[in-house]
């Protein structure tokens, strides 16, 4: 499973701490869902990985953040961390996540069974597929 293969970076800096030291080039930055996206977009060339924290299962802001990052041309790793849950992974992959960190106890072996259960995709998103009519 590609999503699980990308190794965790050795150092991840929280976004606010990163800003406090004027955002030098780093391996990975972790943002929360309320991040100022316009500001983040100005800094994306300075990090190889952006981790988006899902603080709760119901919080879907991270999906739009990933989508906007990919649309802006961000080519680094976008990793979902926090309350990820296997049943959301297929949608995460579609909007542009290419790495995930599963909760404890969620067997990575479940993933192949769950990913892409629904293969039909009606909409355009970040995964290179056009809308169904294109």
């Amino acid at each position: 499973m590609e999503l699980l293969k990308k190794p965790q970076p050795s150092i991840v800096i929280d976004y606010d701490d990163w800003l406090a030291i004027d955002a030098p080039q780093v391996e990975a930055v972790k943002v929360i869902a309320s991040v100022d996206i316009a500001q983040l977009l100005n800094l994306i060339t300075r990090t190889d990985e952006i981790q988006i924290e899902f603080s709760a299962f119901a919080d879907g802001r991270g999906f739009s953040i990933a989508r906007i990052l990919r649309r802006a041309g961000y080519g680094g790793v976008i990793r979902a961390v926090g309350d990820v849950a296997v049943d959301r992974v297929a949608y995460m992959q579609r909007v542009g996540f290419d790495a995930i960190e599963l909760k404890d106890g969620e067997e990575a072996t479940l993933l192949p069974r769950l990913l892409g259960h629904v293969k039909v995709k009606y909409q355009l998103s970040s995964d290179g597929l056009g809308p169904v009519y294109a």
Partner: protein
Amino acid sequence: MYIYNEIDQQLVDERVNQFRDQTQRFLKGEIADDEYRMLRLMNGIYIQRHAPMLRVAVPYGQMTSVQLRALAKVSRTYDKGYGHFTTRQNIQFNWPELAQIPDILADLAQVQMHAIQTSGACIRSVTSDPLAGVAADELADSRPWCEIIRQWSSLHPEFAYLPRKFKIAVTGSKADRAAVQVHDIGLRIVHNIQGELGFEVLVGGGLGRTPIIGQVIRKYLPAKHLLSYLEAILRIYNLHGRRDNKYKARIKILVKAMGVDAFAQLVEAEWQQIKDTDLQLPEAEIKRVSSHFAKPYYLSEQEAGFAQVNSIVDGDFQRWLTHNVLPHQQPGYRIVMVPLKNPLSPPGDITHQQMDGLADLADQYSFGNVRSTHDQNLVLAYVAEKDLYELWHGLADLGLGRANHGTLTDMINCPGLDYCSLANAETLVLSERINEAFDDLDYLYDLGPIELKISGCINACGHHHIGHIGILGVEKGGKQVYQFTLGGSDSEAAQLGKTLGRSIAQDQVVATITIILNTYLALRHGNDETFAQVVQRIGLLPFKEAVYGTAQKTAA
């Protein structure tokens, strides 16, 4: 009627398998309650007072006779032999077993039906004018656009975990039969000066505990940009809508807090970035979807028409013709309203025998098409005048020929405390008593058109805010009491009702309605002045005095 192609069919089949797997894992304890809750909600399943409730999508209210028979079969096989049509044109089953729901969905997938996004914090099943494609006052058929929206929103990866539910309604007529002003997004089909089709876009309407009439954020959106504009609105809402308080999480609160202009600017900026991408609808796709809604093979006016229909000497039939039958855009045809307002069952309920029988009548007299309305009725939309009398007999035999369309007893009503775990008060007992008290059709006709809408809690599934008479059940000190509002409207001139006064005890509800009606009858200027017009003209004061004055005298 849209017919699935292989891709559409594959999607619903795969969704059934996915949900079956999720449910099996939940039943084995492999998915936590909270997590499964969100997964099942996205597929139309609530856990209610007595049992799970399954809400099946009837996208924009359109069904074939084959689908209606399949719904009948589901109610017979897995439930108690009836279904309940909702105020969002969908149908609910109140007694299925959770473990059997995947089988129900598999059965429904065989007739191109599903429960995708009929609940949950996602883009809900799109609603529309039940008279789309047949209404005499129509600018353009809304159904192709509804289907395009249905496909775009189905399993949209970015918008499955919104701050709160999200409802879109579309109308293609000047008269608003889709209540677009009380939806998160309302779309009105309009033409620009060049005569090109587009949409007026409203945002931020809604009922619930903070009722708000939607505001226009774009006067004209070219049709090809429909999806990119919707996507821009949804993205702004997904990022900025409140998530700290579920009562303040709907888009209407965001729009109100930011101001509609500031919100529109954010949407516009986002839209500029995506409007010229693949989200732009190709002409070929619009044509492909529209071709599914081509006019049926109408008979000529000579063959279908029957000018003497008004002179058939049968009083009951003539009353039905006057009240339940509407004009059609095709000469020689009529639209037949089928109220699901049986005095002995909750508004919107229909038995499996009635579903099967109505499916047969639809095949015989209405090109196999049946529609559901947001006031919990059904419609046969393609009836030749020459068939009206026979059809009326057929409907009467099924117990579906009651000529009360548009009258007081054609009320809408949520299921209330009897079924719903959110409700604070019973509502079905009210509809039962109202039906008992107002069973004289001539009296109802004399009252004219009155929309009575009843909700059992502040979530307002019964749309009480936009009823001419609205009733909201609340619990006070362990007792169920009811707040009245007057002067609401769900029409193109949508308006929120104003509170009449202090709450009314359950056993006084019918008496209160009677006083309100008598006040109207005494104060109207001639029989033609409707209830809504009188409230508009004289305000609530005379009604307040009549209701609370009388109550005080009774108490003394």
